[in-house]
């Protein structure tokens, strides 16, 4: 997308979340507020219902599931389904695989993208503009459409069924370059000029001045790339076929260890699959949302 239109100057509101907002003045407004709140609460419950349903199913004994599938609560709640799923011994591996591949992807993306963005932002060289535009144009290439050449490339390289197969095609992230370049552009040029005058090399300026100042950008890119890579499905589905090496999203729906009426166990593994990012999200809710939306980053 060439949708790089400058945003309007934002009117910063100092404490967006915590300041009490307009208080209701009239009865009708108060009523309106109450109705809105009621609707919103109902919708929030509706949104949480599927997750609650998964949890409810996952703690029911399978036998009970057969007789009364749509009951929410069981008198005999059990963690047996979780034990069974974990005893199959696959999910721990998938956790590790997802973590390692996402971390590697994030690391490589942040390094390569920030370095390139630094050059585009600070260095003057011939064809800088065309190079920037060429990189930006890459945003229009959906990587999903490239699955056939990606597979063939990594097959020739003998890297399929290794972490590298999952990681490498995810590394060229044009948006990350763009984000870094925007941020670097905002760093006063005097800072780098002064260092340059002191005889520091560009690489040193990048590593010791610009990157340390850019923690907000690094954290935003890190969060986004990590989440995106953790949840990526189509490419890891093709790159890794060994059950031991699958990422969590691929493993969950490729391997089926349970027989009979496995819904309770399937829901247990779904809950386990949801757990890592949900936990992280609970702890870093605001930062993640900000990292993804791009407001008020620290």
């Amino acid at each position: 997308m060439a949708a790089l239109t400058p945003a309007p100057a934002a009117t910063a509101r100092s404490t967006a979340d915590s300041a009490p907002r307009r208080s209701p003045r009239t009865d009708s407004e108060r009523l309106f507020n109450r109705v809105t709140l009621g609707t919103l609460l109902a919708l929030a419950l509706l949104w949480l219902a599927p997750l609650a349903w998964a949890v409810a199913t996952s703690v029911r004994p399978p036998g009970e599931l057969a007789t009364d599938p749509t009951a929410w609560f069981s008198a005999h709640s059990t963690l047996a389904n979780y034990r069974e799923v974990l005893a199959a011994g696959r999910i721990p591996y998938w956790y590790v695989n997802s973590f390692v591949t996402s971390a590697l992807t994030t690391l490589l993306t942040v390094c390569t993208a920030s370095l390139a963005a630094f050059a585009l932002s600070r260095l003057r060289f011939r064809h800088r503009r065309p190079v920037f535009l060429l990189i930006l144009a890459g945003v229009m290439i959906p990587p999903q459409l490239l699955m056939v050449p990606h597979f063939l490339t990594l097959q020739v390289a003998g890297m399929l069924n290794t972490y590298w197969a999952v990681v490498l095609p995810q590394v060229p992230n044009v948006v990350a370059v763009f984000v870094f370049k925007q941020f670097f552009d905002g760093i006063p040029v005097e800072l780098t000029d002064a260092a340059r005058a002191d005889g520091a090399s560009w690489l040193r300026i990048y590593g010791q001045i610009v990157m340390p100042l850019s923690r907000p950008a690094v954290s935003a890119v890190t969060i986004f790339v990590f989440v995106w890579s953790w949840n990526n499905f189509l490419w890891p589905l093709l790159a890794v076929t060994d059950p031991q090496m699958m990422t969590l999203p691929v493993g969950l729906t490729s391997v089926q260890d349970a027989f009979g009426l496995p819904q309770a166990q399937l829901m247990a593994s779904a809950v386990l699959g949801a757990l890592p990012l949900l936990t992280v999200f609970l702890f870093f809710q605001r930062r993640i949302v900000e990292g993804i939306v791009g407001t008020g980053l620290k």
Partner: protein
Amino acid sequence: MSATAVPGAGAGAGAGPPAGAGAGVGAGAGAGSRTGAGSAGRGTRTPSARGGSAHTGRWTASGMLLPFGVFYVVFLLGPLVYTAVAGFFNGSLVKGGLGDWVGTANYAQALGSDEFWSSLGHTLWFTVLTTVPLILVALALALMTDRFSRGKWFFRLAFFAPFMLPSSVISLLFMWIYADEIGLAQGVAKALGADAPPSWLGDPDWAMISIAAATVWWTVGFNFVIYLAALQEIPREVHEAAAIDGAGPWQRLRLVVVPMLGRATTLVAVLQLVASLKVFDQIYMMTGGGPDDATRPSLLYVYQTGFTDGRAGYASTVALLLFVIILLISLVWFALIRHTEKEA
């Protein structure tokens, strides 16, 4: 993947970039094939008068661009060129190599095949089914949430949390909810008085709608937080002024708030459109494209021809056609939105 500016990005709590430049930064990346992609935002930008001191050797610049450049060429540009070329050959996945030159035979076959067009139709149908509700529902939720100063975290949690989940968790969850006879959705439909609720994923007329509903549940949180952020950028004074002028809540909403969300809507609509056109994950897992291929989207067609049938050349043809179509649709769509925005 897409990058667009988000309105917003006030430097929160005084910890912006150095020297108080206040450059907000957003990260964004296409979130796989899920609908709801990333966004990038930036705010007040310090126009950097890039100094004349940057006398740089070409080698420094090349060296710094090289690592990214290698990945870019090997995994983005190169594969695109390969796809374009391979489309004219009859390459086979199991035999390897480009195969033999077949000219435009693959194109003739694709453009003349029902499967290509029907899968494209399903993709567009899915796009319509998801894009519209994803914008409207997100807007409604954000408008309602914005009225309350406390408890916002709870609504953000409720509406955004599903977006953090992998597509496979979503698929497992909704395959269970949509299950015939024993699923929650049929149970609810029966409780609401439907005698014979449809087989949500098994009925060709319903399957895509069911998948779209699950997708809306899953990804609406992304648009929701974008709208919420945009709403927070509307200065309090605007609300107050309108209230003093005697505008009721509805009027304020219609005449003051919604018009100020135009830019956020553009962003959300474009991202949503592009992401929906690339839908794959949840359909692959929930129906595998069935029943009777009634939910097979274009990307699944590429996957099936390329990897299940092993026809790498033909799959490349389809992928390239799809690339062109996505490009055209998003350009047209974008131009349209820009046009109406200007008129408004």
